[in-house]
């Protein structure tokens, strides 16, 4: 297209300016929403934050908000344990799946397998929760009662974040330039040598990003965990002990909470948000190290 007329050019510049303005407003809005959420959380939890010392949330005897005991630490540990457990299971499985799709499977099988994983990522979390409640929990119960446990939560979470990590790892591995792999092959590296020495290091950042995305989802997952974790507020001693996560705590109690009880639930929301912020801070640090 030739823009000989000054008129057209002028109009294009105008449209560009306008579009930039709209995009900027959109970006600002997105950032503002995040800030507003934070402000809202602090505002709603202020009645107890100003009245009670922070120590109460760490040092109280238990979590019985109606009796004035507000220890959030067992739930923090529950949240971290379920997420870390799920990640420990997911990472090797997902990496194996992604490597299988990219390097080992014949093309038809790879496509089919990838479609299956994509389907898995589309299943709503409440379906996983119901499956867990009606199938997984009774199964674990036969083995070691009561069934609803840290283990059940970890397994259900693993099912949920597996597709995310697999698909991002697949994308990262598929984006490794073909010439790198050819060169590796030309140097006489075995297939595993090529994967370990070339493909994985080149796809490292993409894989790490997928893992962090999955970790954030695992920390915040509510319904599925609420249905299978047992929700008893305690530090678990074994994998078969029930736990409660921060997100499940909010979902369980918020519908009927009033006054201080309500405000403390917002504190647990704030704590969950801080946890996710720490996670994204870690992601930023990782990125920086890569560039340094």
């Amino acid at each position, binding site marked *: 297209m030739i823009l000989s007329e000054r008129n057209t050019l002028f109009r294009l510049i105008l449209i560009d300016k306008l579009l930039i303005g709209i995009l900027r407003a959109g970006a600002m809005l997105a950032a503002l929403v995040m800030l507003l959420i934070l402000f809202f959380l602090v505002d709603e939890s202020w009645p107890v934050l100003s009245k009670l010392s922070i120590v109460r949330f760490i040092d109280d005897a238990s979590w019985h908000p109606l009796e004035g005991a507000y220890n959030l630490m067992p739930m923090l540990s529950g949240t971290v344990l379920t997420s870390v457990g799920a990640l420990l299971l997911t990472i090797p499985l997902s990496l194996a799946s992604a490597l299988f799709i990219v390097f080992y499977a014949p093309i038809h099988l790879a496509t089919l397998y990838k479609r299956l994983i994509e389907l898995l990522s589309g299943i709503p979390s409440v379906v996983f929760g119901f499956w867990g409640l*009606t199938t997984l929990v009774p199964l674990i119960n036969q083995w070691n009662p009561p069934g609803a446990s840290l283990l059940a939560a970890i397994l259900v979470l693993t099912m949920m974040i597996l597709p995310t990590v697999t698909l991002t790892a697949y994308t990262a591995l598929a984006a490794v330039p073909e010439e790198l792999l050819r060169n590796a092959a030309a140097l006489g590296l075995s297939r595993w040598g090529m994967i370990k020495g070339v493909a994985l290091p080149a796809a490292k950042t993409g894989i790490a990003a997928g893992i962090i995305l999955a970790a954030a989802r695992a920390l915040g997952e509510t319904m599925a965990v609420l249905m299978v974790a047992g*929700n008893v507020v305690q530090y678990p001693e074994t994998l078969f002990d029930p736990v409660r996560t921060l997100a499940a705590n909010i979902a369980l109690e918020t519908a009927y909470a009033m006054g201080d009880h309500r405000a403390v639930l917002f504190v647990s929301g704030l704590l969950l948000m801080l946890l996710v912020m720490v996670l994204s801070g870690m992601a930023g640090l990782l990125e920086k190290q890569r560039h340094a």
Partner: protein
Amino acid sequence: MPKNLQLLLAYWFFIIIGIACTSSLQAQTKAATQRLVLTGSSTIAPLVGEIARRFESLYPGVRIDVQTGGSARGIHDVRKGIAAIGMVSRALKADEADLHAFVIAQDGVSIIVHADNPVRTLSREQIAGIYTGRITRWNVVGGADARITVVNKAEGRSTLELFLDYLQLKNSEIKPHIIIGDNAQGIKTVLGNPHAIGYVSIGAVEFEAQRGAPIRLLSLDGVEASVENVRQDIFPLSRSLNLVTSNEPHGWVQQFIEFARSSQVHDLVRAQYFVPVNTD
């Protein structure tokens, strides 16, 4: 490019129109003249909120404001004249005889076990023993030789409150193995675990049991757990949900109370797993 821009502009235009419409709607409702304030029990508030919404759609001139704060607040606010109607989730006490109470529904809680469990009935002491962790195996109370899985409700739920009141316990004394949120989750949990014991709203579990779910309602103090016995007020684990006023109600207050007791809201009452009253 200009076409895209037009689309974008049209999009923003619609959003602005939408916002304008909702705010003018809000302004309209604010302009309504009659305002009815209800305060009190958080058990009743969700039900009354639903009833109020239906009432408002029938009589657009009235706006009903439902606030929670506990039964005590409901009594206090009605006496002080802050609220027109109080919501009280228990029968009135002797020193509250100056108030007028109108039952809008009954709330009953039933102890449930899996249908494979041979236990048919438990005494109050046995239930308290199981829930406080003194009794940990079913064979102690006449069941199979298996560990009991204690299912408790999340803090703040009305069924928990009623249950604790019946056993004269505090929630911190209970040693649960599983904590659940709503009734459906409680029923699913007991269905999946033959050694579990739990308690849920009677309306919810009778519905499931009639549809053939393998679940058993335990009778308490010799009274069979059924919606009918809750309605008759002879089942021990039940209470009445009341609307209270300071004077003989008239005008909109009277109309609202009559509406809340009528068969027009029975579906709303059942949806909250309460038992409707028979007024006609």
